[in-house]
């Protein structure tokens, strides 16, 4: 048994964990591996526990999925791997699998007496890293540690492929970790894991170990600053050193930033890299990402953080969107990573589930979206941003959409936890986005819009909206990023006020509906990415939005901007509210509705708006929309925390932009970038 770990008791499986670099001799690995085993059958549970103990693992057993989830949540770094039965009375094993993937990014092994191919396949698609057929033999359990190592290695590998990482950083990172442990591989693994854990840790900084770097808690504010810095530099050029300089946070080291950046990139990449269809890989990937980021925000309770993050997004998203959207139309499609990373950071775990086609109803329906009402939840902006970024990749919006979806999901999830509303937005946004495109015709825009709209509209009107992370058509969302984000955020809020599980649950429902939960999230991720892209590209997105929305982007570049703001939300809304089926029309109408509700709260029922109407609406409302939003659009960092400005702020910022060319929104939003003229159709 691992001496440093109790017999798998939770207490030992705390963040200090058994894998403290300084404490555990790496060579003992895999002894002491912290396993959580979940099975409703007491006989099997006892046998498994005994077997795992015989393998020298630190075992915690639990017979209900809900308990398992709360255990995992309470001890984010308390376990290395989870083994779960497929058939459980309180929660489907696959659902648990998804939750874990999303929130904690731990390897999960499924097991069942059922060896039918379709069930095993389901395990694969849902992201299980292995599937054991009962009766489980001890030999099978002896090797489960490989999944833990593999996952770590893959994460490193992904980081490697991020590209943008400074070589120095990367090399330095591993080497840093190596110095922590005697065994290279395991040490790296553990170190990296430790680092990851540390960074994900919400605890205050504390130099607990001389071997470890001081823990950095990536609070919402900090993350906002980080994202702002990254956006300023441009995701491609964001190197830890510069980010560090920009952030100017005392005590923050370059390594902290570097590793955070890695995660962020992974997150973005995941978002954008997820294809529309259910791809378990994507899901896993995203899950991982999201999990990572999710942890950042402490799904469990960092409302503030989430908000902050979300809030931040808007500002950032806007900026990013502008930059991304305008500048890098292809950014999204091409390189999901940056976006994904970003998204990850935002912990848009919710996005995934968002894909649910409008499943989010309950999410969104909770409150009539106040698109414009400054929804306190900062999430909106973020979400929008995300959406935007996702939307960015004009070309392959779909991909983005997925990404958004993913993001959205995470966002949603986060939001849910903190603010269900926020989540909803994200999701909605995500989902809407895809919708929009269809109707709109420009996938790109849809995404963007969807994202945006979702936030705003989704929540109020349609629970669906929120769930619509699936915005597959990743398109347009991009453009709308900034403005919408805020809106979206606000939307989410109304819906999801119930933090935590409740929020997530809808998503879960979504997922079911969606069919592939993963997809849902990916969709969201896409949205986010779109937003991010937009944000970064500045103005690119806007164009996209416009196009997608069919707002006749061509009509008024400016208006588009304004409209974009609105339309995306509108679109999104529509997407949400309308059943997934109708898609565009519905989306549009929903969106229109959403927008309306948000903006004028009049025409909620424009179901047929689809685009044209939206256009009109947008035009009309664009001004309004703008006016309302974002007072603090500029202050990204502030977005989150207790910012109610949410939508309204964004809206006003947007409007301002529209009117004035560049919204007063602070530079952070980069409203400047929203010149609609560039809409890359």
């Amino acid at each position, binding site marked *: 048994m691992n001496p440093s770990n109790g017999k798998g008791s939770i207490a030992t499986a705390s963040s200090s964990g058994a894998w403290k670099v300084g404490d555990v001799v790496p060579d003992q690995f895999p002894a002491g591996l912290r396993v959580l085993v979940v099975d*409703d*059958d*007491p*006989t*099997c549970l*006892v*046998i498994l526990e*005994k*077997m795992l103990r*015989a393998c020298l693992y630190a075992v915690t057993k639990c017979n209900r999925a809900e308990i398992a989830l709360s255990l995992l949540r309470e001890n984010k770094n308390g376990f290395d791997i989870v083994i779960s*039965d497929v*058939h459980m009375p309180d929660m489907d094993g696959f659902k648990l699998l998804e939750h874990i993937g999303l929130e904690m990014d731990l390897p999960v092994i499924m097991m*069942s*007496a*059922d060896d039918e191919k379709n069930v095993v396949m389901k395990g694969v698609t849902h992201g299980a890293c292995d599937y054991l057929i*009962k*009766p*489980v*033999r*001890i030999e099978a359990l002896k090797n489960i540690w490989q999944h833990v190592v593999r996952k770590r290695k893959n994460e490193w590998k992904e980081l490697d492929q991020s590209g943008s990482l400074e070589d120095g950083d990367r090399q330095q990172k591993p080497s840093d970790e190596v110095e922590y442990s005697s065994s290279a591989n395991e040490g790296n693994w553990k170190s990296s894991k430790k680092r990851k854990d540390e960074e994900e840790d919400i605890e205050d900084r504390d130099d607990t170990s001389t071997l470890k770097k001081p823990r950095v808690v990536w609070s919402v504010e900090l993350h906002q600053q980080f994202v702002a810095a990254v956006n300023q530099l441009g995701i491609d050029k964001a190197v830890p050193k510069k980010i560090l300089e920009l952030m100017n946070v005392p005590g923050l080291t370059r390594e902290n930033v570097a590793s955070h950046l890695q995660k962020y990139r992974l997150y973005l990449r995941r978002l954008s890299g997820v294809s529309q269809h259910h791809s378990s890989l994507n899901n896993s990937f995203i899950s991982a990402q999201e999990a990572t980021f999710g942890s950042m925000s402490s799904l469990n309770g960092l409302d503030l953080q989430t908000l902050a993050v979300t809030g931040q997004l808007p500002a950032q998203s806007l900026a990013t969107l502008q930059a991304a959207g305008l500048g890098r139309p292809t950014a999204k499609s091409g390189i999901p990573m940056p976006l994904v990373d970003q998204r990850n950071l935002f912990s848009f775990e919710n996005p995934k589930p968002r894909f649910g086609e409008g499943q989010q109803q309950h999410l969104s329906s909770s409150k009539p979206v106040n698109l414009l009402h400054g929804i306190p939840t900062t999430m909106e902006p973020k979400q929008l941003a995300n959406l935007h970024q996702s939307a960015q990749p004009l070309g392959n919006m779909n991909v983005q959409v997925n990404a958004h979806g993913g993001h959205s999901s995470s966002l949603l999830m986060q939001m849910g936890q903190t603010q269900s509303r926020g989540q909803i937005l994200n999701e909605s946004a995500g989902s809407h986005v895809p919708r929009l495109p269809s109707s709109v015709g420009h996938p790109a825009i849809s995404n963007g819009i969807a994202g945006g709209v979702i936030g705003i509209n989704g929540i109020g009107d349609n629970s669906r909206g929120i769930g619509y992370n699936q915005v597959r058509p990743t398109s347009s969302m991009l453009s709308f990023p900034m403005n919408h984000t805020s809106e979206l955020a606000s939307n989410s809020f109304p819906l999801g006020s119930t933090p935590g599980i409740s929020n997530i649950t809808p998503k879960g429902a979504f997922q079911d509906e969606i069919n592939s939960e993963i997809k849902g999230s990916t969709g969201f991720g896409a949205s986010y990415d779109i937003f991010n892209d937009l944000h970064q590209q500045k103005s690119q997105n806007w164009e996209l939005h416009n196009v997608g929305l069919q707002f006749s982007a061509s009509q008024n570049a400016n208006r588009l901007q304004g409209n974009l703001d609105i339309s995306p939300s509108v679109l999104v809304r529509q997407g949400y509210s309308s059943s997934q089926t109708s898609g565009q029309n519905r989306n549009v109408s929903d969106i229109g509705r959403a927008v309306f509700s948000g903006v004028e709260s009049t025409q909620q029922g424009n179901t047929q708006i689809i685009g044209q109407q939206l256009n009109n609406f947008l035009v009309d409302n664009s001004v309004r929309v703008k006016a309302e939003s974002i007072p603090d659009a500029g202050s990204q960092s502030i977005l989150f925390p207790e910012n109610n400005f949410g939508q309204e702020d964004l809206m006003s910022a947007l409007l301002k932009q529209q009117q004035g060319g560049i919204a007063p929104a602070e530079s952070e939003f980069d409203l400047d970038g929203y010149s609609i003229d560039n809409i890359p159709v």
Partner: protein
Amino acid sequence: MERNQMHKHIFLMRQSFFDQGLLDEQFIQLEELQDDANPNFVEEVVTLYYRDSSRTLLNIEQSLEKNPLDFNKLDNYMHQFKGSSTSIGAKKVKAECTQFREYCRAGNGEGCMRTFQQLKKEYAILKKKLETYFQQTRQAGPSETACRPRMN
């Protein structure tokens, strides 16, 4: 010595379980988990199994009395039951479970009921035999307690 005799007897008994197909390899896995720290592990698990699975069997029994039969529910119960039976290596019981599930999928209520009766029989037989087995094992066990001549 009686002790040796007992041991031999127990050994043969156990062997018969495998020969007759009452138990399979999984049971051996359980035995291998037994160690000094948990000297009665197998017995504990089997006891736990019988206690827990009796509830499931009751559920199935009640469900079989309903009309019309809810095959889905029956299948779910049986899946549960099969899982635990498999984990202790109850081979014959497991076979009956499989058969039962097939009938469920085929919607064959009659077949389900017949199989269930058979299953209960096997289940009871195994229970009795294992009880005896454990009892004797404990009596004849490695402990220093005086060997009791009684074997039952």
